[in-house]
């Protein structure tokens, strides 16, 4: 497929499709959680969020938007460029966290247990051909 613009409506559509196809409830350990990525300093100067909601391992909501994000169990805050590097597999999420390029908010013990799930999610998103 042709490249789509990262975080664009087309990218969101493709992400929803791929996540549904590739991440079964079993693969998602049937978890229930929600998280919001806050993209600061996007190329157009705006701030955006990416919201994911999971119920019993099924992704029930996946969206990108501007303004106040939906309330989520976890919030991950970083520059657009950091998230883009993670999506392009140029930077590991753990390395970004431990070098303070990402800021995590939420219950840390729960967050650690969810880390493998987030990895799986990131791998699917990274597979979308995109222009950053």
């Amino acid at each position, binding site marked *: 497929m042709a490249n789509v613009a990262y975080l664009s409506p087309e990218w969101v559509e493709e992400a929803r499709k791929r996540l549904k196809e590739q991440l079964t409830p079993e693969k998602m350990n049937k978890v229930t959680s929600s998280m919001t990525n806050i993209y600061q300093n996007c190329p157009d100067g705006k701030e955006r969020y990416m919201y994911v909601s999971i119920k019993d391992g099924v992704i029930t909501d996946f969206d990108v938007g501007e303004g106040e994000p939906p309330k989520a169990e976890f919030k991950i805050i970083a520059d657009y460029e950091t998230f883009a590097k993670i999506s392009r597999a140029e930077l590991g999420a753990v390395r970004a966290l431990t070098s303070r390029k990402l*800021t995590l908010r939420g219950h840390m013990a729960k967050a650690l247990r969810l880390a493998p799930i987030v990895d799986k999610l990131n791998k699917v998103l990274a597979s979308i051909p995109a222009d950053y």
Partner: protein
Amino acid sequence: MGSGKQANDPYAVDIGKRIDDIQALMKERDIDIYLGSRIRTHSFIVDAFVPWRSYIVIPAEGLPTLFTFVIDATRILSETWMDEDHVRGYFGAGGAEQVDVIQYFIEEELGIEKGRLGYETGMATYTAEGWLTHYEYLKFSEALSGFEFVNAHDIVDHASLIKDEGTINRFREAGRIVDKGQEGAREAIENGGWKGMTETELAGIAALAMRREGSVSEWNFAGLNEISSGWRTGLGACTPPTTKEFAAGEPLMFDLHGMFKLALGDHSHNYLLAPATERQRWHADNFVACVQFVADHYRAGATPGGLITELGQFAEDRGCSDFILPGVEHGIGLFGDEWRVGANMDVPIPYWTDPEHSYQENEMVILAMQYAAQEDGVGFRYENPIVIEKGGCELTSKYPLAIEEIE
């Protein structure tokens, strides 16, 4: 809110009352948030073993929340009365390290951005007290810039001074466990068993005996079980066990530590390895008599200053006052509480025993005595957690007070 799984649990304690007591004292002092960092504060509230660097945030109203090293959060959750929302972890990542998580929790989740924050600082001889470090203080006060930081550890000290029945029962069980350790240690050295044995080996034998009875930790930081023999007994304190082998004609000092449901067993017992000299026997008889004298005089209303004065006269009459080290006590409470006697800050020498502290019923203290005859290479130490009663005291270790000669 209690911490006793079944009705009639002899070890049940009322954590709700503890929190209410702390919050009432916070209100008196106009404190909006209490940031506890000492082990004794965690033990008192969490009612579980919290060994890693942790912080407990107690709001003026509502439940406290613990922040611990994330690797241990789930284990603590399995042992405490607190739920998952109130047992949280921290680790070394952006937004996840200690200061970040607590700042975010207080400001964003509790919604408190300014006020008075009580924290814990001071000093002790006890290394692992857990005072907020200077670095932590700087970082927390920078992150929570809307707060006035006030030292308030005496709030928890006051709330934890008088022990409830469940806590006292835990100490009784810890005393029984330590007695089993003493029995195991004695069995190991009798009938020549001491030959070729080192202080460290004996410490391990005693530890195994206590673990088999349910102890979960030799909690003391001076080598866990403090064992000394020979010249080091003449210093009147055990201190860490060494690889020195026991030798005939030497005194032995076994200071054992066990832990049961955070209650600390701490009993020090002494022996003479045969052949004992007449001088050693004289010293030993003096010490036993002095310990018995003090045990007979502990009661509600007694003071450390009064007890040491009375003991001084008793020892003078026996001609052994030169060998009695000053002091007949050190503090004791749940894990992490091993130093202060009493709870008042307004004492002649801060963080040392107030000689005028008046013991109250159901307060606990270690009856701790030291006898040091360094020139004769002999000394003894006695420790036993005691419960202060109206007309006396209860020794939680029942091991017989004696200094036997072991063949």
